[in-house]
């Protein structure tokens, strides 16, 4: 995948992001905290302008929570998020309204479920123009033109503006959601499983649309998904999450063709390949996807890892790119797989 990214100048920098949720037992008058859900545990990465970072993992790994925290839709427990040099958390907690609104325009999100992400009581026109109502950055006389322009951008028709969400198919609703996100002219969009609930033949439409928009508007994407095939299609770099931590981060080709972390290896081998000549040698992981409440000690993957040894049970591995530059992995035995 040809990259149009600005080398060396990240547009988004996430450092040591942590998000714990309290697990609480309710009494009649008191609430007692009995544990933590380690939803996001010390996650760091950066994204350059015009680049797509894929964030993959299974349920409970924290990828959706990470997305919400980056946009400050949830308050992080600790850590920082810098967008175009601005400290996101600080701005939302103590900054001016102007700055907060600016961030809301530059950073956007397309949500997972097209059947829930559009207000059923608003017309498409209202949904898309809500951005103008909130930000008041475009004179009212231009709203209709702008809405039509956005609809055309996502290959919908002008007459669709009068309709209600339930009159559209899943794929069309997702286009409306994309148009809404573009209405504020963002620079960075988080895409949370945008095609997972769509039919196969529609997925390609939406994926191609997203790729085209990225090129024409120089957008950066954080593409969150459990569907590895579509991640490969759209991402330049990929981060793999397990139980709240990033276990591997590298260029897409490296992750898919030569993964260094046992979890990544199992994950990729588990995906059915639409190719009859492909011999499936599935690495089957024992057990279940664990719960992020009180995760295992040391290396969190060791209970299911086919290569685990003593050190894995005692010491958490460092996340570093010692073996291959630019290819980060957290595993004591990664050198075996180079």
């Amino acid at each position, binding site marked *: 995948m040809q990259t149009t990214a600005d080398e060396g100048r990240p547009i988004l920098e996430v450092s040591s992001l942590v998000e714990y949720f309290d697990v609480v037992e309710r009494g009649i008058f008191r609430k007692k905290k009995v544990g933590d859900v380690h939803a996001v545990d010390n996650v760091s990465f950066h994204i350059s302008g015009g680049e797509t970072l894929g964030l993959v993992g*299974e349920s409970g790994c924290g990828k959706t929570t990470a997305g919400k925290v980056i946009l400050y839709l949830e308050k992080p427990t600790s850590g920082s998020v810098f967008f175009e040099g601005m400290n996101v958390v600080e701005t939302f907690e103590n900054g001016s309204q102007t700055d907060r609104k600016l961030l809301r325009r530059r950073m956007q999100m397309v949500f997972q479920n097209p059947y829930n992400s559009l207000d059923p009581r608003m017309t498409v026109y209202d949904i898309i123009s809500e951005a103008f109502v909130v930000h008041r950055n475009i004179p009212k006389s231009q709203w209709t033109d702008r809405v039509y322009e956005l609809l055309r951008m996502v290959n919908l028709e002008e007459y669709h503006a009068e309709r209600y969400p339930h009159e559209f198919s899943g794929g069309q609703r997702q286009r409306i959601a994309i148009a809404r996100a573009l209405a504020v002219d963002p620079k960075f969009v988080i895409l949370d499983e945008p095609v997972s609930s769509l039919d196969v033949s529609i997925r*390609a439409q939406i994926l191609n649309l997203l790729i085209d928009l990225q090129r024409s508007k120089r957008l950066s994407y954080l593409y969150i998904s459990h569907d590895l095939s579509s991640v*490969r299609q759209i991402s330049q770099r990929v981060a793999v999450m397990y139980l709240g931590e990033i276990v591997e981060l590298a260029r897409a080709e490296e992750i898919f063709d030569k993964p260094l972390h046992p979890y990544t290896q199992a994950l990729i081998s588990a995906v059915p390949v639409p*190719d009859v000549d492909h011999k499936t040698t*599935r690495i089957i992981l024992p057990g279940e*996807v664990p719960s992020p409440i009180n995760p295992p000690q040391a290396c969190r993957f060791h209970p299911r890892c086919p290569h685990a040894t003593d050190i894995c049970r005692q010491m958490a591995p460092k996340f570093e790119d010692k073996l291959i530059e630019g290819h980060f992995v957290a595993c004591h035995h990664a050198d075996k797989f180079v």
Partner: protein
Amino acid sequence: MTDYLTPSTHDSVNELAHPLTEKLLEISHLRTYFFTEAGVVKALDGMSLEVNKGQAVGLVGESGSGKSVTAQSVLRIVPRPGRIVDGSIKFEGEDLLSKSDDDMRKLRGPKMAIVFQDPTTSLNPVFTVERQLTDILMLHRDLTKEAASKRALSLLEHVGIQEPEKRLKAYPHELSGGMKQRIAIARALSCEPVLLFADEPTTNLDVTIQAQVLELLKQLQKELNMTMVMITHDMGIIADMTERVTVLYAGKVMEVADTPTLFRSPKHPYTEALLKAVPSVKQTRALEVIPGNIPNLIEPPSGCVFNPRCKYAKDICMKQEPPLEKAEEGHYVACHFWRELKLEGRAG
């Protein structure tokens, strides 16, 4: 698979079986319609399918293709307002559509079973795991409660559940998705059916759990020499788990072939388009888009049901519905131009 028999020993979809090939299931021109307030939804509109004993067959299609309705029709559990209006379904040589409800009930379980997509809704939330299994065993196999419990335990072991004694007493909501699906599989297999429908069994599961369940199904199919119909939209699962595949679109059959043939040299534009639209973990390539949307089944397009989205469509495609014709041994296509078109498949 020891009983793999090539289907190329018979000429037409409806021909009498060659003595060596045992046709287990024969669906012919099946029409299942749903009579709703908004109109008649033609979920299946003239669908034919053949499955031989011991085969692993795939039924692939997107939403609205009718793949789930096919399984429901065979087991005659089509929900209201649906009804089978035409066609025939033959199982082990017997006509299923003329059977009474009682007779069908005797078949469901011991002869044929379905594993559904969502184990959360297909398992009864107020029964323990044990009860889910023993109920069926006592009904069909006439076992005592103790015998049924023992069998339930061994079934759980068979589907790879750890600590099965504990799990027997558990309720579905206490279990993970993967485990629930294993139990659903155990239940479907409890009376040792000859025919198993797996309706998107892994779609709701995590990737690594999906791998576990698919491996399990593969293994069980071999062991029990079971005939399995894998219903899915995932071409990867088709490639990995099936020998023969039928492509459905909007209630009609587009193409039928051996799986390798379908992937390497498809003869129907929809199949070609589907193969080109599917991304793969193994390579990055430009995805070709299928324009348009899945058609409205109340008023499907006239002529060939795929014509509005087909890049090769000509006049005749809008007027006349193409018949399902034999292109080669074991390879059938429903397209006016299968002879002329040179389509691309996915070579390795």
